[in-house]
């Protein structure tokens, strides 16, 4: 999962540090800002909105992958972990279990909404208010 999703973060941070305005870079260079101070004061804050975008994409991808990976059928053997993914998969395959399936989907939606509300939206607001260029 880390292997697949690090790229989202890496590329977004790269895009972010390339988007640092020239005058800020020039000012930083003029005042001799280097190394960690340069990252802490300029490059990371300037690419924060990009970093959040990268994190959201990465976490979405990760979550997707982890839910799907809860049920693996391979060479006729079925490996199953307990979790939302396998729950939904089980009741999808069973017949006449609409309510269970519905519950699974409702819980999943609730997760997504809560995550968006309490984590991502806050980070986005921070990016918008404090780190906008």
């Amino acid at each position, binding site marked *: 999962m880390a292997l697949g999703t690090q790229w989202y973060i890496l590329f977004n941070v790269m895009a972010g540090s390339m988007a640092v*305005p020239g005058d800020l870079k*020039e*000012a930083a260079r*003029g005042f001799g800002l*280097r190394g960690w*101070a340069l990252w802490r*004061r300029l490059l990371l804050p300037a690419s924060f909105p990009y970093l959040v975008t990268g994190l959201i994409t990465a976490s979405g991808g990760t979550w997707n992958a982890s839910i799907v990976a809860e049920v693996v059928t391979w060479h006729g053997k079925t490996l199953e972990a307990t979790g939302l993914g396998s729950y939904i998969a089980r009741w999808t395959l069973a017949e006449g279990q609409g309510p269970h399936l519905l519950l699974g989907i409702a819980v999943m939606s609730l997760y997504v909404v809560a995550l968006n509300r309490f984590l991502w939206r806050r980070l986005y607001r921070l990016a918008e208010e*404090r*780190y*906008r260029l």
Partner: protein
Amino acid sequence: MLLEARDITKAFSTGGKPFPVLEGVNLAVGEGEIVALLGRSGGGKSTLLRILAGLIPPDRGEVRFQGKRVEGPAEGMAMVFQSFALFPWLSVLENVALGLEARGVPKEARLRRAREAIALVGLQGFEEALPKELSGGMKQRVGLARALVVEPLVLLLDEAFSALDPLTAEGLRGDLLDLWQAGRLPARAILLVTHNLEEAVALADRALVLQGSPARIGREIAIPLAHPRDPHHPRFRAVVEEIYQALTLREEVERRLEEEMVRLPSASVEALASLAEALARHGGRADLPVLATEEGLEVDDLFPLLEALELLGFARVERGDAELTPAGTAWASATPEERKIMFGEHLLRQVPLFARLHQAVLERHRVPEERVLARLRQHLPEPEAKRVLAVVREWGRYAGLLGYDDRARVFFVPEQMEEAPEL
């Protein structure tokens, strides 16, 4: 000498083609003086300032600061930027302390010195504010404090007052001058780049005028006026006039026109007509400063217009005056229809680029924009080529010489032209 530049030459390369900006520039800034660097926009003055500051290396020549060769950003110099260049996520205090942080000054000392610098520029009480909460003038005070806190020997101002409204700019200039005269600035020299002549004359002891393309120091004009300087005093006006003239030297304009036959100035037809009318109202001849004030323009805005009128053979610029030619006088008083026709005639006669393009369009009926752009690129760097192309489109369409298809990006023969290509 505190700061010296010898034989500075710099070219930027665009698409593999070098585009010379500075050629053999020499200058020296001594202790205790304020020097203004003046020139046309895009004339290389900001580039020169950055080379002096060690932010970009020259292609040839060298900069010496306190006798030592400058190889990178020099510690004893600090710059104030036109765009303020404040870090939006840092408070005023943190912004000001930035330069000290980079030099490894311990936190306590750094904050104390930053507070002192903030107090010096009159921003006490705003230490914890974020830049976006400040007005433009206050932002530039932060920019100034950030430069002063590192106690530079030379303070560099890159159009530092240009983004401010005139009143705010005047206030900040006055405060800076007061601090300078009271000996409260660490700096022992100030070098300012500006396109505002009045600003240069209000502040500087000496003005250096960059001329030509590539630019070199063309004139040095002493400003031996006592402070406080009154912008309405005849001697103040005389110095402003002298600098105007240095910027509009006859041979200078001619050489530029020759060198840059393809570098059409950015001037809307509407603005050209309005300027010609203004000149006509003055009896066909007017002083440039008067004209600029009357049209509500800065020098920078006036020059491309005058250059365009000159190119078209509608006006001449000489010794700080602009004068309409007989054709220009006729154009200024013509009806809109006649005006269009005259404009087209003059374009074809005076601007070889147009004559060639018009010929090509008549012969082939359709000429892709890309072909014109490729031609322009042979003489100009990419952004300039695009800019000139936009001028070609506007002028050509207005004169009825060229049609332009936005979607296909081709020039074609406008309809009424098919039967009467002679116009």
